[in-house]
């Protein structure tokens, strides 16, 4: 582990973005149907896709 220490911001930037997108998706589907549902599916797929991406790109 030769990496430099990461700042708190660097550690939480991606998780924070995923969290904000997830919450927005959860609320958006509640406010209507149609395109709101579709955007909500995309938003809630982000945490799932993040794990899939890590398993493909970050596995060592």
């Amino acid at each position, binding site marked *: *582990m030769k*990496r*430099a*220490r*990461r700042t*708190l911001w660097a*550690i*939480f*930037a*991606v*998780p924070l973005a*995923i*969290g*904000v997108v*997830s*919450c927005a998706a*959860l609320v958006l*589907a*509640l*406010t*209507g*149907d149609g395109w709101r*549902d579709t955007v*909500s*599916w995309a938003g*809630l*797929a982000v*945490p*799932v896709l*993040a*794990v899939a*991406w*890590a*398993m493909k*790109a*970050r*596995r*060592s």
Partner: protein
Amino acid sequence: MTSSTIRAWYLIHKWTSLVCTMFLLMLCITGLPLIFHDEIDRLAGDASAYGQPGVGSSGNAPGLLPLDEMMRRALAARPGEVPLFMAFDNDQPAMTITTGPRADSPGAEMTMQVFDRSTGRKIGQEDESGVMHFLLQLHTDMFLGLPGMLFLGAMGLLFTASLVSGVVLYAPFMRKLAFGTLRTSRSSRLKWLDYHNLIGIVAFAWMTVVGVTGVINTLENPINKLWQRNELAAMTREYAGEGALAPSRYGSLDKAMAEARRTLPGNNPQFIGFPGGSFSSKHHYAVFFQGDTPLTEHLLTPALIDAETGTFTAACTMPWYNKSLSLSRPLHFGDYGGLPLKILWAVLDLFTIVTLASGIYLWLGKRRASASAHVREVESGGIAVPAA
């Protein structure tokens, strides 16, 4: 973050998790099929049998039978019983009528019959012996009633504390690691430590929302009692001195519904609470209307109609605690955005199971190691494996 701060959060994470994990695993496993209970119920029954498919029983489309006629049929099948609830559907002519031996019968004595309002035919009776019903009971209160519900609510609170402490520990753990790091080839412990951290952090928002709304759902009975004692009592103050209205004196439901619709035009009723039950006074039909926008559809407004005379008494939006309960239901069940949302709900539920199971595995593997050794493991990003 100093080592003693990490140690405190590590201990919070360990103990809140240890107490709630087994119950949370049970909730996640029973919850998984419950996400799809509409689809499973539909597969089990024959949905094509409606007289007028697609016509909601909550409306007043021509061809829908009068409510009094539907109630007559329900009571004919349950002689000697009294009406307790009548609930409607916005999408299909199906409706349910719940009866019981007394106006204040508890849930266990109630019988729920399902009717097609467009033909008047009975299409089913709530099956208390089915697998889905068993799973729902286990998930809601573990067959222990209110104490069971509140106990699971407490487990939900511990789960929330465990999630928060987990996020705090994520910071020192990831100090030298890039987001998404999965070291799967070094040791089994390191692999599951990385999965536990990655899945825990990406699903944090969803787990927190579903956890907290689950806790609010466990407060359903106290919340309804509070509403009945405060708001409802205030709305029906002029009836306070009178005794309970005898079921033989209940007046026309159709007249009451017409009166209620005049008060809240354009909205559809979700259900009627009958006199003496936990959703009404001892003298009123409480017609609970949904709002007319997608968001307010979940927020109910009761119109209270004198059950004997059919005259309007009062209508009032629900207080904040009932509103939070109403919004907590869809956010916990995931049933408000079509099948894709339910599938994502299921995947995130599986993520939660992986996080819980890997947490148990990580604890079991090194449960004899000291707290300081675990703190060093967190600080080193999993490199300093605790001895023993």
